[in-house]
């Protein structure tokens, strides 16, 4: 599908992107070349690694929540399955890469199994069902002690190499954003947006909405499972409360909203902005930072529901309120304002 026309010359944007990536790729090298400098440290690389993971997770969430319009409040369940899959296989003496892949495949299979019944639900009903799925999986992990270590958790073989994880998460983030960019320009991407805009109409025009929704859901689950596996290996320890962290999905929703739901660049902008604000600005607000986050969320919904990219004119975006109104929008044809009906 043809992308909406950009306001900036594509070459210039590509050049800026390449320069940014080159700077990011060079950061760990600075540590080796200039060992006395204090700006690029292992701690800072760790911060960037976390940010890249959040960009990837938010982009994955945006595939179902933003493009397709199914706001998933349990998306972190795929992160948890990926993390636990990796941990369990590594404890069986599997190397990291096959373990991570197996964890991601498990997450994708789980998405396929639960996607079929849950994606028939609309709007808030789907969101609540996924939230329930997330809580249920956390409890299953807690009680499946022989496999998961229960509440005590699992320890993975330690491998402390900050630059390696930095590069892995950077490459994954670039890859995932690239996949989202491609999807947005493909017929598949336009199909997902058509489902978000008018699911009944899309079905009437020959789109098998069930297959397309499940495909997006499974892909998002698989990619999030990879992030979970990387996070588990980097962390070297996983437990139900740390992996199935309840506010993780809320963070993703917030980041996608701030950046712009249903846009390619939105999750990148949103995740980077919130992570940077949290790391740099809110660190000075001590216990008030959660209050600041809450206020930011309210302000976004009230004054910028299309997010930063929506405000900047990326017309493929949408607002959470529109997505949330799905039950009404999908069960009845969208009303055209009276003044628009005449030629």
């Amino acid at each position, binding site marked *: 599908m*043809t992308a*909406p*026309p950009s306001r900036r010359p594509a070459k210039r944007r590509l050049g800026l992107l390449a320069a940014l990536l080159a700077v990011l790729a060079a950061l760990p090298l600075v540590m080796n070349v200039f060992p006395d400098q204090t700006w690029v440290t292992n701690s800072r690389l760790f911060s960037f690694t976390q940010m890249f993971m959040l960009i990837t997770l938010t982009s994955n969430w945006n595939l179902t929540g933003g493009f397709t319009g199914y706001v998933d409040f349990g998306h972190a369940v795929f992160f948890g399955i990926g993390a636990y899959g990796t941990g369990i296989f590594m404890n069986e003496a599997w190397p990291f890469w096959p373990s991570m892949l197996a964890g991601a495949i498990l997450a994708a299979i789980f998405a396929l199994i639960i996607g079929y019944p849950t994606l028939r639900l609309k709007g808030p009903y789907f969101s609540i069902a996924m939230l329930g799925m997330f809580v249920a999986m956390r409890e299953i992990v807690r009680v499946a002690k022989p496999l998961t270590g229960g509440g005590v958790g699992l320890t993975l073989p330690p491998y402390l190499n900050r630059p390696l994880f930095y590069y892995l998460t950077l490459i994954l983030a670039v890859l995932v954003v690239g996949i989202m960019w*491609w999807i947005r320009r493909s017929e598949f991407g336009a199909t997902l947006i058509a489902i978000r805009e008018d699911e*009944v109409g899309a079905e009437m025009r*020959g789109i098998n909405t069930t297959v397309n929704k499940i495909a997006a859901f499974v892909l998002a689950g698989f990619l999030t499972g990879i992030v979970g596996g990387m996070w588990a290996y980097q962390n070297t320890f996983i437990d139900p409360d740390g992996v199935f962290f309840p506010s993780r999905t809320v963070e993703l929703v917030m980041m996608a909203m701030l950046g712009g739901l249903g846009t390619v660049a939105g999750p990148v902008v949103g995740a980077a902005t919130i992570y940077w604000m949290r790391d740099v600005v809110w660190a000075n607000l001590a216990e008030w930072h959660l209050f600041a986050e809450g206020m930011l969320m309210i302000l976004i919904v009230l004054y910028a529901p299309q997010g930063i990219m929506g405000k900047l004119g990326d017309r493929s975006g949408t607002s959470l309120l529109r997505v949330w109104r799905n039950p009404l929008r999908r069960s009845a044809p969208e009303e055209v304002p009276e003044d628009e009906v005449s030629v």
Partner: protein
Amino acid sequence: MNGVTPLLEGRGVTKRFGGLEAVKAVDFKVMPNEIVGLIGPNGSGKTTLFDCLSRVQPIDEGSVHFQGVDITRSKPHQVAHMGMSRTFQVIRVYRKLTLLENMKVSRQWRGENLWSQMSPSHRDVEERSRDLIKFLRLEHLTNEPAGTLSGGQRRLLELGMALMPDPELILLDEAASGINPTLVEEIKDRIKTLNQEQGKAFLVVEHDMHFISDLCNRVYVLNYGEKLAEGTPAEVMENEAVIEAYFGT
């Protein structure tokens, strides 16, 4: 028409909403290469019957057949794949997608798989989309989001979206309302051309009797969910029961 399998056939189609029987045991046929009109006063059940025939609404009794195949339990996208396309009384376009994207996403999905959908462009689809956009005189809006169009422009876009998959049967639900008269004439000509040269069949719901009489071979009249009359446009317009239903005299 004896011996020829109807393109679309409803047998005793009944639809209820709670205690209200919106469509009452209606028998209905559209033969190949035919343009059939469906008229009736407001609230007579025309759009409900349309929805039942195109599988938007499940029916409570009776059956629906398309090209001889029972589609009573088929899903709407399966019916669309078989070659039935439609427009809606309340316009349905994808507001956030551009005109071109709206057209492309409405193409025929027969034989397509997800992998082929990952391709950003199919040249034949692009050409067909642009041709139809040009016919609808919307080429200056090709890359604009559909949400920025006026109601009439959206109506035209929806018509283009219905034509995009090259269906065997097209159901038009008040497709001419809100469109300027000159273009309505062109649309009529286009429908006649598609019917005469390509054998496309149409089922048309329309309040404009000139539109119906100019186009249709046969007309069904509904009133209170029941089939009131059936015949050529001239026969129907002279039918006393029809006149009474419309004018109450």
